[in-house]
């Protein structure tokens, strides 16, 4: 009776799943996953797209690395990334026969933040950051960073290892992707970092510029000195490249086969690029300038040709 019904349902489910061919675009939706930095951008775009009558888009935030692994396993249509795809990841995609086009959708200024009650530090050099974050570092107090700073415990919050933010930061500051001390609160979700830093007077954290912009009342952004003086992170310095070494491109990787088979995907991607600057401003990213947008649109056309 009912156990039999259950057996029938399970078998039917298995059969349907079998011919579904993976769970991408299940339910007819476009599936995007990846960076939690780029996630809000894609979500904002998806909302606007839907408001114009477009197809549904689901957006996950499991981190740039996690997103790529799903992307190359043929589970998603779009992979959001806050760094370029690594060679190893590209190889896995090639193995699985997943072809894609890489599109830049915005720029980011990786921001270092401290609690708003932190009134002693305004600017840090790259060397100082390196001393704090390098593997095996034992810096645990602000006075160790600079003798003129007060004796306040240093609490670190940062990105998890699946995060493109982590990869980019460690590469830029410590010289190698993935090289970092391990005793900090790590999370793929930058909002948790916001909560941590804003709740702790001696805290120091890093994440994408948009997360700082949205929480300016709780956090203070540090200027970074890469040898040429202290530069604050903002739209201008990110666009003209003076905020080094922490300005970075944000990407959306789109699967070529999905462009052909999934309804509305091409429209969505085109919509994203055409509105990239406006959405970036809405979601508080650093927008692409018109030249960059045109270049990306051209890439898309070439790929779908």
């Amino acid at each position, binding site marked *: *009776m009912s*156990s*039999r019904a259950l057996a029938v349902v399970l078998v039917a489910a298995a059969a349907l799943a079998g011919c579904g061919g993976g769970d991408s675009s299940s339910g007819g939706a476009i599936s995007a*996953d990846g960076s939690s930095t780029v996630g809000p951008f894609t979500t904002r775009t998806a909302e606007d797209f839907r408001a114009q009558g477009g197809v549904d888009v689901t957006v*996950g935030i*499991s981190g740039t690395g*996690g*997103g790529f*692994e*799903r992307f190359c*396993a043929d589970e998603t249509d779009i992979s959001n990334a806050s760094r370029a795809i690594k060679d190893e990841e590209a190889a896995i995609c090639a193995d699985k026969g997943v072809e894609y086009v890489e599109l830049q959708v915005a720029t980011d200024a990786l921001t270092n933040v401290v609690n708003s009650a932190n009134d002693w530090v305004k600017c840090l050099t790259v060397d100082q950051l390196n001393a704090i974050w390098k*593997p095996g570092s034992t810096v645990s107090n602000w006075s160790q960073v600079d003798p003129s700073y007060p004796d306040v415990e240093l*609490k670190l919050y940062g990105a*998890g*290892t*699946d995060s493109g933010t982590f990869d980019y930061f*460690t590469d830029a500051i410590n010289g*190698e*992707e*993935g*090289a*970092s001390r*391990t*005793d*900090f*609160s*790590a*999370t*793929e979700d930058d909002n*948790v970092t916001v*909560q*941590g830093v*804003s*709740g*702790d007077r001696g805290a120091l954290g890093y994440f994408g510029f948009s997360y700082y912009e949205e929480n300016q009342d709780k956090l203070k952004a540090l200027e970074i000195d890469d040898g040429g003086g202290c530069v604050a992170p903002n739209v201008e310095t990110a666009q003209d490249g003076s905020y080094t070494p922490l300005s970075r491109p944000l990407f959306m990787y789109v699967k070529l086969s999905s462009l052909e088979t999934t309804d509305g995907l091409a429209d969505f991607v085109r919509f994203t690029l055409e509105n990239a600057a406006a959405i970036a401003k809405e979601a508080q990213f650093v927008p692409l300038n018109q030249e960059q947008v045109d270049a990306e649109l051209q890439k898309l056309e070439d790929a779908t040709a």
Partner: protein
Amino acid sequence: MSADVTVARPAVVALPRKRIRWGEQFVHLILFIAAAISVLTTVGIVLSLLLPALEFFREVSPLDFFTGTTWAPLFLDAQFGVLPLVVGTLMISFWSALVAFPLGLGVAIYLSEYAAPRATAFLKPILEILAAIPTVVLGYFALTFVTPFLRDQVGVQVEIFNALSASLVLGIMLIPTIATLSEDAMAAVPRDLRDGGYALGADKLQVSTRIVVPAAISGIIAAFVLGFSRAVGETMIVLIAAGQLAQITFDPRETVETITAFIGATGNGDVPTGSIEYKTIFAVGLTLFVMTLVMNLISIRLVRKYREVYE
């Protein structure tokens, strides 16, 4: 009970052989299959945990895993010492037990010995409401009410994510479990024992603490063990309020990471099969499963022991 009825007859008459009813056999089979689903579940749990965990232990030595003091599985120079997670789990469970055991036992004693029957009938459903609150709501309460309360009102300098808030709320969550099981144990104590105490001139304090509680002690201990095991297995409250910094510390004001929080944070459903992350989930999950299983077996033993005493 469950046996077929046999009709008593004079021994002389030989009964005809029972005719097999195929419909009944079929029903029996279907029911057995239904019951077997639970066995399949356990097998599934064991398999789904054991196989990847074994793969994991092929790459990481069990000695490093169980005795290492740094948990940094996803970094460049990966370290797989699970002790910080275990310490975090046990510490939170310990502090929550400190809250739940006395309060739970107190509630049980009150309901069993002091409250009028009508009051009890009214209070027990309210206790059930406390038990029904979803843990995500409790976690949110810990983060947004208890932590600021501790900082501002009580003056304890806790981190924004700390073990104390999570433990307090977790302890409150466990009170219904401990109270209902302890109260059941105390209700099973025959009235004669209490009446005997009163007849000898004891007052209620003495009867409760020196007669009833000792008589119900194994049921109460079983309740404690079960409560502790639920604390060990709880995820949402610690995930939201206790944080994600795996460190060995015994100071409840600090941020800690429990086994369950690690699994919940890492296993966002998108962990790719075969990666080392995927496998750490299983190794750690297996550790958790074994811990709660052992505690549960202990508590079953204790319950069985106390059940026999009065029958």
